[in-house]
């Protein structure tokens, strides 16, 4: 009895040592992603598929909140040297605030970057380095609509803003909410402005360059101001649902699918969320680009997906690169399609989509087939994006403020952000 007891500590130490040596063979990486169902599912699927093929590597997925709260977590963890080896984060203007050349691993010389389409490389570039590989499919910003309502009322997909407003009149008379507003989740209110950028570019192809240099403002540019005026015209016509002020994003999806409302201005990542919650009913939903002034120049404003980056302080940079090579291969996008379905075109060479994509995805892909019919959103062409846009569009959409004063206020917001970024020409 006594002897057994005295052996016990020794046995447990031995066990610990064995466990320790087993773990020492495994390389352990951490991957930080945001808590949206899509990103989390995609991250877990990629990690599990990779670990199956590479038994020596263990990757732990860590979760953070999204939105600006998440931005702060990412920035502070990078700044304090406590960032995970790999992390998922936006491309475009938000990436620039991470000081990529000092915090992230430059991937421009990696062979797997040849698989990443140039259009994506340009939105993860900073000071000549290229820092990320796309971890999702590309997206469009535009208008999701209820196909049953359109069929019932005999409406056609509008190719000009006037047709869109005419459709809204018919829809309102039939007793449906023409446009779904979900201002409790303030970010959803920005779409009429942000998804209008294709139309701005048709009239002013250099807007983004002049805007970045501080020479053009929203209030003084006719096409850019029109984006705000469109928001105002929908409010003034009374086309928003009655509970636009207190409804949230998820309410909006439900109202769209169940036919309480006809149009929901939104990013197409919502399609995966609809599939997840409503299954096959996703085929009641269609998609069209936000229409502009001319039917001949009708095209889609495109959002680049978020990206996976490697932290410069990671002690396993080579293993992390190997994982990114996997993500940037056709294997990577197959895993994502298996897990969350096809939600848009991939930015990886050779990644096709299955034939049976959901209806709204098929509607969106049409715009990608013709390079003349799509253009990136402003936030992928310029590092300048004012943080208060969502509050301003809520005000315009609720009638608290008119389009011009909203655009002027946004210009002030933009000027402050540009000064904080230390850009030239903003004093």
């Amino acid at each position, binding site marked *: 009895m006594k002897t057994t007891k005295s052996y016990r500590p020794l046995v447990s130490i031995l066990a610990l040592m064995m466990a320790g040596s087993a773990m020492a063979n495994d390389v352990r990486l951490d991957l930080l992603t945001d808590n949206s169902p899509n990103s989390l599912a995609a991250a877990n699927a990629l990690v599990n598929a990779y670990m199956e093929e590479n038994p020596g590597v263990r990757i732990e997925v860590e979760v953070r909140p999204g939105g600006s709260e998440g931005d702060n977590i990412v920035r502070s963890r990078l700044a304090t040297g406590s960032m995970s080896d790999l992390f998922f984060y936006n491309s475009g203007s938000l990436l620039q605030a991470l000081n990529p050349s000092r915090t992230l691993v430059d991937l421009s010389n990696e062979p797997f970057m040849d698989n990443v389409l140039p259009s994506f490389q340009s939105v993860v570039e900073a000071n000549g380095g290229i820092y990320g590989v796309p971890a999702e499919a590309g997206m469009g910003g535009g208008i999701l609509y209820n196909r049953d309502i359109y069929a019932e009322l005999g409406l056609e997909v509008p190719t000009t803003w006037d047709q869109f407003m005419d459709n809204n009149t018919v829809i309102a008379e039939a007793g449906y909410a023409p446009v779904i507003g979900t201002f409790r989740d303030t970010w959803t209110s920005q779409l009429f402005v942000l998804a209008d950028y294709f139309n701005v570019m048709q009239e002013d192809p250099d807007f983004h360059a002049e805007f970045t240099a501080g020479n053009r403002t929203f209030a003084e540019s006719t096409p850019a101001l029109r984006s705000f005026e469109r928001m105002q015209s929908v409010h003034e016509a009374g086309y928003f649902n009655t509970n636009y*002020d*207190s409804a949230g994003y998820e309410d909006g999806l439900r109202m769209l699918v169940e036919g309480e409302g006809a149009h929901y201005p939104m990013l197409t990542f919502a399609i995966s969320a609809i599939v997840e919650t409503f299954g096959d009913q996703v085929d009641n939903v269609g998609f069209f680009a936000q229409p502009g002034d001319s039917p001949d120049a009708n095209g889609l404003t495109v959002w680049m997906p978020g990206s996976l980056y490697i932290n410069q302080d990671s002690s396993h940079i080579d293993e992390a690169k190997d994982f990114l090579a996997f993500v940037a291969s056709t294997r990577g996008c197959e895993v994502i399609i298996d897990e969350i379905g096809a939600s848009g075109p991939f930015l990886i060479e050779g990644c096709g989509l299955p034939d049976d994509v959901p209806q709204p995805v098929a509607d969106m892909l049409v715009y990608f087939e013709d390079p003349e019919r799509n253009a990136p959103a402003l936030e992928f062409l310029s590092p300048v994006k004012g*943080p208060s846009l969502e509050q301003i569009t809520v005000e315009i959409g609720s009638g608290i403020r008119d389009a011009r004063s909203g655009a002027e206020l946004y210009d002030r917001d933009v000027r402050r952000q540009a000064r904080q970024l230390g850009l030239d020409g903003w004093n």
Partner: protein
Amino acid sequence: MTLLLRRTASQRVQKAPSIDSFYPFWFYIPAGVVYGLMFLVPTFASFYFSLTHWTLFDQRFIGLDNFREFFAEPFLLRGLINTFIFGFTTSAGKVALGMMLAVLLTSNIYLRSLLRSVIFFPVLVSTIGIGITFTVLMEPHQGVINTALQYMGIQGPRWLTSPSLAIYSVALVEIWRGVGLATLILIAGLVSIPTDYYEAARLDGANAWQQFWRITVPLSRPAVATVITLSLIDGLRTFDLVWAMTRGGPGFSSDVLASVIYKQYQAGFYGLSTAGNVTLFLVIAVVALPIVAYLNREES
């Protein structure tokens, strides 16, 4: 209490050399280190960072530019006005309602101690939880409050989504949340008033109203002063409830100073938001110190 502290303070001044001999020097070190690391360093660091352009990755000294930018903030004035509205209405509400409840709960009523605990419960609940709960209750179309009002034939307002009403709705919830603590402090004040005064007043024929205004109110002054001070400071630097309920919205209409600052922080303007915090600290000091001094004046 304050009197006692002041007396010891003046004694200390006189006997300054000998006080050090009470404890050996090393005895002070732990508290000194904690105080220095946790309070002095961050305070002075924030004064410094408020004068820099700070991205977390690097900082550059820019003098008072952040303060200039902060005072040019379009919604600073709105935020400042809302901060004062919020601070003063919640403080007044907590004192008035707290006093009524304290009088009720010190009287000879049935289940008194149970009722005393119930009034204190909201203080124990997380503010964010309260905020989310009331956001649901105050939902203008299907929320419980407006549905109930509808049964009474009243069309309820858009509590949190009307730009002119939102800040008052949040203030109302803050009063509900904080009145328990106010009541508790006031109860302590009321029970310390000797019953002799009331007996004497009754003999002289004073009615309940006169007793309340001539005895209860003046003699509970220290408790009232404490409640006003605490709730005013709480109200002026309020953030969590506003953020949980309206995020400063709709638009910017219920922004308070702290939410203006938080949004700057969220946008990554770290130097700017630090300058805002230094300003907030000064505003609270400027508003609260004279009030505290005034309320404590007659005590000493």
